[in-house]
């Protein structure tokens, strides 16, 4: 084996320019896959962090059975009562993976500044729960300032947050008074005064002109109920999401509760669509890179074989079997693959560092606020790409090498 590796290494160095072009093609292919993979990983991580931590939805959400299908039409019909909530909390807090159970109530109605009114949709959550959940976010998004003004407080239920668009429409700023009006669960009109504590950017652009952030107490007062619409569950580890979902789904019916348990991936708007779109784009990039690298290696190895036909004939004459010839060029191609992948690793790392260092911000589709652009280097992607490039390099050499190995020894020796 030493002899073949020696011959392979020395021939790579002998044809340094040609080898360099092939290594560069592999390196760029490697980097393209990992930079785009790192970008998609960043997108998925951003959606995850936003959904679970920044918006306070948690890893799992428990609804009354049927809420997701019919709840939009008649949400009051699918509220979770206080007794049901106590049972649910008892079951959930028994699970060691659960760190927070947060009951929440969605409200909607009219908001008025005394002069003009507009519709609002509100999210009623205990402010301390929101602060706890947001505090567990990691990464650069965790450093984001999520609102302007004062933080909402559990003991000041009339303090609310307005989305920036809604604040602009009603010309309401921090400290201003407003009124929220709606119908209660019993169908009676109700109105509550509130004070603007903060303004924020809504998670979706479409909601930025109507979103209200209120405490759970305020939302329950507005609807005149002690029920909630959903119970969000925050876990200690993101990886436990699906396993805990299954356990909760199995436990609740046993307690006589008809509930649905949804994970954040199914609950986040368009998460699966975004994921599928990025996966398709990744597939296109992958196929293009695959073709370029195969062609590059086949071209390099074919030229090498043509130049070394007499050498191949000599080795065969000395007793090297056909498989030995294939192995010789497979080793050479594998070494090119390794060199290209290692170079690609450096190119990927340098590119990621450069993009992250530039602190670029951008506004993704449906977002209303700019977020930082990052590329994550994912060790699993790097390892898989490395293995793939190595296998591809070896495979690309086999075809031309096989042809050379099957050539008549006499013809090979007579090659000029």
């Amino acid at each position, binding site marked *: 084996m*030493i*002899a073949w590796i*020696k*011959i392979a290494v*020395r*021939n790579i160095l*002998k044809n340094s320019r040609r080898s360099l072009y092939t290594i560069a093609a592999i390196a760029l292919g490697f980097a393209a896959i990992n930079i785009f993979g790192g970008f998609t990983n960043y997108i998925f991580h951003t959606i995850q962090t936003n959904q679970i931590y920044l918006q306070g939805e948690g890893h799992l959400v428990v609804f009354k059975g049927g809420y997701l299908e019919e709840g939009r039409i008649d949400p009051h019909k699918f509220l979770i009562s206080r007794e049901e909530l106590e049972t649910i909390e008892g079951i959930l807090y028994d699970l060691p993976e659960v760190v927070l159970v947060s009951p929440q109530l969605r409200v909607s109605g009219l908001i008025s500044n005394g002069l003009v009114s507009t519709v609002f949709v509100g999210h009623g959550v205990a402010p301390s729960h929101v602060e706890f959940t947001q505090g567990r976010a990691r990464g650069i998004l965790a450093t984001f300032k999520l609102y302007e003004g004062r933080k909402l407080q559990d003991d000041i239920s009339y303090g609310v947050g307005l989305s920036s668009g809604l604040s602009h429409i009603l010309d309401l700023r921090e400290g201003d008074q407003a009124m929220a009006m709606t119908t209660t669960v019993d169908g009676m009109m109700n109105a509550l005064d509130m004070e603007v504590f903060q303004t924020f950017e809504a998670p979706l652009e479409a909601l930025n002109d109507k979103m209200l952030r209120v405490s759970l107490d305020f939302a329950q007062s507005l609807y005149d109920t002690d029920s909630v619409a959903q119970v969000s569950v925050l876990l200690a580890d993101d990886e436990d999401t699906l396993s805990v979902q299954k356990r909760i789904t199995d436990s609740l019916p046993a307690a006589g509760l008809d509930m649905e348990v949804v994970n954040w991936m199914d609950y986040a708007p368009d998460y699966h669509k975004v994921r599928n779109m990025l996966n398709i784009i990744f597939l296109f990039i992958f196929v293009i890179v695959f073709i370029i690298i195969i062609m590059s290696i086949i071209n390099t190895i074919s030229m090498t074989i043509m130049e070394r036909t*007499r*050498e191949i*004939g*000599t*080795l*065969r*004459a*000395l*007793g*090297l*079997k*056909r498989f*030995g010839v294939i192995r010789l060029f497979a080793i050479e191609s594998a070494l090119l693959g390794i060199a290209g992948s290692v170079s690609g690793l450096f190119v990927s790392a340098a590119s990621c560092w450069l993009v992250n260092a530039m602190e670029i911000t951008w506004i993704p589709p449906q977002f209303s606020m700019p977020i930082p652009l990052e590329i994550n280097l994912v060790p699993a992607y790097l390892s898989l790409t490395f293995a793939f490039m190595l296998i591809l390099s070896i495979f690309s050499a086999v075809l031309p090498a096989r042809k050379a190995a099957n050539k*008549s*020894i*006499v013809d090979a*020796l007579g090659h000029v």
Partner: protein
Amino acid sequence: MRPERWKYSRTGRIIIVNSMADKNEHDQPLILFNDVWKYYNDGSAGIAALRSVDFVLRKGELVAVWGPSGSGKSTLCNLAGLIDEPCRGELLFNGVPVSELTDSQRSEKRNQTIGLVFQRFNLVPVLSALENVMLPLQIRGLPYSRAQARAASVLDEVGLGGMLDNRPDKLSGGQQQRVAIARALVNNPLLIVADEPTANLDTENAEKIISLMKKTGRSRNATFLFSTHDERLLSHVKRRVRLQDGSITQDETHRDQ
């Protein structure tokens, strides 16, 4: 020359054979061509490079195959060296029909029992002299250190002990051919086949190379077959086989050379 033991082949030709009762292995020819034909396809018509060749090479012999260009010398050497196969006829190597061997078996036989020396040296350019000579041993599977030691010893034998690390581009033609000879000898082959080994050398070097091959071959009791178009080199060998238009026209054994 009258064959000592012979029989009629299937085609009615006379060939030297082992008697069925003869258990003496040393009397078995190393190479036996029995009515061998070899064609090469030249577009529309095939060209017969060898025509009905009957030829026997005994163990320990030193034989020169000579004739003009295109007479079939290289073809005969290629067949004897098992790097080609006849189109018709029978070729036996050490009593084994070559047609019954797979490509893999022929490769093994070439590696372990045949040493080949080529007209154009055919050294691997990226390997040193030592590494080139080690190649047959490494193909055979010998451990690196043993291969290295044996190769160095053989290179010393051919007078290149001080040039182990030189690559072919740093060696003269004569030195390259010595490396090629060392490579051919390193596995202690039964047969050494040299196809016009002196064609690219000047007369002085040519003489030296033939003498070297003769001397080292004798010291190993190897059988030696080489081809040449230079009649001056024939004085080094006892048995001379002349080829003309693919057929053997003379097969003479002279006084000891």
